[in-house]
């Protein structure tokens, strides 16, 4: 057994050694090490030890460790074959529908998917880049391609593909899918900090510290967090985030754990994305404008950041790296010709280059970052890293345990097992309980929770590196409001009971859901 494991590690190490050469940091890292080798600190006689020591002192050691950490995280998850062909079939059909709808929108509006921007238009766009809210576009005829509601309808048809149904199982949609999800006892083990009632940030701002020398838990966490930031070692940061981050350190901690720190190459790359936005007019741009307008611009938490969001979302659509990083997870975008460009390999583009078609509310994946970064480039890379690691799973069909289908199923099972009366109530009033929480899950609660609470929730997603927190929170909110839900019997009124989450405290609710009575 040990031998097999060792061999596996050896195999991974070889793969890592090979792949690290293709990572963007390799060149500068290699030259840093070379410089170090020629410094007097490294002795020829005791080469290995002195070099390692010198790397530690220079911080190269942490850099290398973080690189390995981020590399390993990207490896483990995909490369797995979809065990349910029915799901991949549904996913392909859904993708086709989206593309069809885009094409017909183009035909109706007599425009094309991609065309070269006129010089005059480029000039205006360049001038208004930092205040795109004043860029005049007639968007009255543009509609979001799909909304969470439409996506839910697609997910609800999935059960139809499943060949078997067990008689003893209620005929709730997701219950038929042969996917394995955790039970509440397993979740308790997954989130020990919550289930054991440890002191956490986000419970009570005046909670006293148990460590001598600190008056409050917050002061204690800030002090510890400052040391974690200084250390800069991603696995430690991840561990730290489980108990919540103080807002003043969050920006650094998040970019560290996601490996989204920016250096000159990242700035250059962002500027290339911007250049592409300025030069090429993609139909998806209008959808992005429309989405920012429909969501952030009308939201009292985020309207201030409108101009920042236009930049970030437009550049995101041009980012080929997103598509590369998510290969196999997001389908295949069509390749279209850019009208007005001379025929060459460059006149073709994936539509859009990122492969991601925004849905109604897509911008909400990026909005909370506005409370952490005021520089668009920093905001961009942390948002992108978050998207690539988590958010895409919320709007693509897959059997991944962190995918939206599994999360819906988890929610259903949790509700049935832990709030049987609510479950029965939903059955009696003939409402599928997923309907009342789906938009929360699909947007990871963004736009539903106030930003301070949302950031605490996302701390936990990063800390535990999982999305199962979302259905768990949905369950907790329903439990918390159940007395009000029992009093209503239409979908509209249940929605009304759950519409305002401005008084919800996320962390205490999650604790409550997991702590044994």
């Amino acid at each position, binding site marked *: 057994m040990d031998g097999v494991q060792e061999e596996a590690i050896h195999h991974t190490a070889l793969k890592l050694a090979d792949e690290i050469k293709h990572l963007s940091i390799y060149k500068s890292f290699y030259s840093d090490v070379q410089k170090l080798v020629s410094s007097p600190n490294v002795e020829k006689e005791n080469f290995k030890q002195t070099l390692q020591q010198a790397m530690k002192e220079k911080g190269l050691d942490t850099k290398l460790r973080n690189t390995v950490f981020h590399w390993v995280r990207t490896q483990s998850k995909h490369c797995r074959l979809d065990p349910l062909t029915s799901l991949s079939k549904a996913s392909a059909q859904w993708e086709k529908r989206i593309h069809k709808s885009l094409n017909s929108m183009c035909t109706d509006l007599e425009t094309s998917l991609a065309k070269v921007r006129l010089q005059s238009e480029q000039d205006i766009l360049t001038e208004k880049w930092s205040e795109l809210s004043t860029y005049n576009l007639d968007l009255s005829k543009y509609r979001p391609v799909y909304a969470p509601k439409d996506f839910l309808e697609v997910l609800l048809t999935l059960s139809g593909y499943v060949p078997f149904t067990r008689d003893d199982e209620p005929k709730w949609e997701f219950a038929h899918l042969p996917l394995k999800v955790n039970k509440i006892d397993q979740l308790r083990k997954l989130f020990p900090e919550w289930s054991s009632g440890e002191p956490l940030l986000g419970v009570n701002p005046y909670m006293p510290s148990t460590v001598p020398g600190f008056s409050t838990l917050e002061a204690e966490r800030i002090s510890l967090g400052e040391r974690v930031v200084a250390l800069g070692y991603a696995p430690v940061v991840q561990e730290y985030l489980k108990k919540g981050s103080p807002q003043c350190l969050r920006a650094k901690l998040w970019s560290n754990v996601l490996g989204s720190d920016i250096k000159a190459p990242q700035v250059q790359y962002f500027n290339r994305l911007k250049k592409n936005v300025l030069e090429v007019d993609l139909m998806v741009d209008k959808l992005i404008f429309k989405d920012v307008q429909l969501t952030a611009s009308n939201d009292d938490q985020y309207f*201030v950041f409108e101009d920042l969001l236009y930049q970030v979302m437009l550049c995101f659509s041009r980012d080929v790296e997103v598509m590369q990083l998510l290969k196999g997870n997001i389908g295949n975008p069509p390749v279209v010709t850019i009208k007005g460009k001379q025929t060459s390999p460059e006149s073709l583009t994936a539509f859009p280059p990122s492969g991601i078609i925004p849905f109604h509310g897509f911008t909400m994946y990026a909005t909370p970052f506005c409370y952490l970064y005021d520089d668009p480039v920093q905001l961009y890379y942390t948002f992108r890293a978050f998207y690539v690691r988590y958010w895409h799973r919320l709007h693509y069909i897959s059997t991944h345990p962190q995918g939206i289908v599994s999360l819906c199923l988890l929610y259903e099972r949790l509700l049935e097992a832990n709030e049987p009366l609510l479950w029965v109530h939903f059955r009696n009033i003939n409402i599928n309980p997923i309907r009342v929480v789906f938009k929360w899950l699909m947007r990871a609660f963004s736009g539903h929770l106030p*930003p301070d609470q949302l950031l605490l929730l996302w701390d936990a997603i990063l800390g535990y590196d999982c999305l199962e927190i979302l259905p768990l929170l949905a369950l907790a909110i329903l439990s918390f409001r159940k007395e009000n839900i029992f009093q209503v019997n239409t979908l509209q009124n249940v929605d009304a009971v759950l519409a305002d989450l401005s008084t919800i405290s996320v962390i205490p609710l999650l604790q409550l859901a997991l702590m044994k009575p």
Partner: protein
Amino acid sequence: MNQEAKKITNNLYGRVNAPVVERCRVNFCTDLEKSVLMSNFERRGWNQVGPDDEWNFYWASTQTCRNLFSVESGYRMNDNQMINHFPNHYELSRKDLLVKNIKRYRKELEREGNPLAEKAEVALHGGQIVTRYVHLDFVPVTFVLPADYNMFVEEYRKSPQSTWIMKPCGKSQGTGIFLINKLSKLKKWSREAKTPFHPQLTKESYVISRYIDNPLLIGGKKFDLRLYVLVTSFRPLKAYLFQLGFCRFCTVKYDTSVTELDNMYVHLTNVSVQKHGGDYNNIHGGKMTVQNLKLYLEGTKGRAVTDKLFAAMQWLIVHSLKAVSSVMANDRHCFECYGYDIIIDNQLKPWLVEVNASPSLTSTTVNDRILKYKLIDNIISVVLPPDGVPDVRWNKLPNTEALGNFDLLIDEELLEKDEPSGSHSRGAKSKYK
């Protein structure tokens, strides 16, 4: 979210979660039938009466309040009557008097040799060195026109590049305000004001203040803060700060270029001004909560500077109140809720712009309505004794539950009492002594 759903939810969750207070026989009278007021009075089971009846609680206009207290009216209030203004609130709320009182307060402290009145030389934007108070420099340099014209010109010459803002003393909501960056423009204005076509202007006095031309911008836009401060007594000073203030944003990107000097959508944050701009949004009304401002500043600029800014704002409020405490008619029947307008500059220093004694109770958005409803609810529970019946003999020491969303800013009586033992109240800070 759909509007209908939002409405239902607000009924379920938006409101202050308080049970219907046991019905006391309180008669209220109001000059203003705003829904945030009426719904609060109704929830408490109060009984509406006219101004000539036996009222216990009067939500009056400033004019009514002045009339009641005037000698001619001959009205005498009994111990079970309270009113929502101090008779000479204008010492704080009139732009010229506020500045006059603050100047006098600083001079008095200086004369006493109080360390608070310490002065130091600071460099202005343009590089000129001027002498300023270290701890009490929280209102932009201001003069009253036409009275202080010569003093203004002297100050103007020190930094001729700076912009000044002219405001009529007695008006509000941004009316009559304009910016000046040349002395000639002021001269032209004064000539025009004296023409027979504008006889009313000659009588009116203006304040001219150094314009904060380096405001903190968020998302490229300028904003100011509206904070609510409740004063239940001026001697000893008892004041509370409402936690739920908000920022009011301009709809247009901030631009200091001369061509934009006359574009008031760039410079003035007043909702009454911004409402007429093409980009005004009815859903959020250009308003963001102070809690979110704090979250943003902590996230992007760090904890220490954010805490310092919020402490400086409390400092500013306390000292503006102390500056008028000696001249206020400190009637036991009165309390008052002030709307403080504050601008933060890009060095994260807060500046007091003005104080409003009748802050708007009109709700522009759903969240605005919730906020103002809570404000009124909390004001009533702070100013009334625990049994809910107005009584001026009460010691005006509300318990922690009664504070709601108010934090104690200062209570000189408590400070005195607690001197040796330390304070037991939330937010009481001895540094304001």
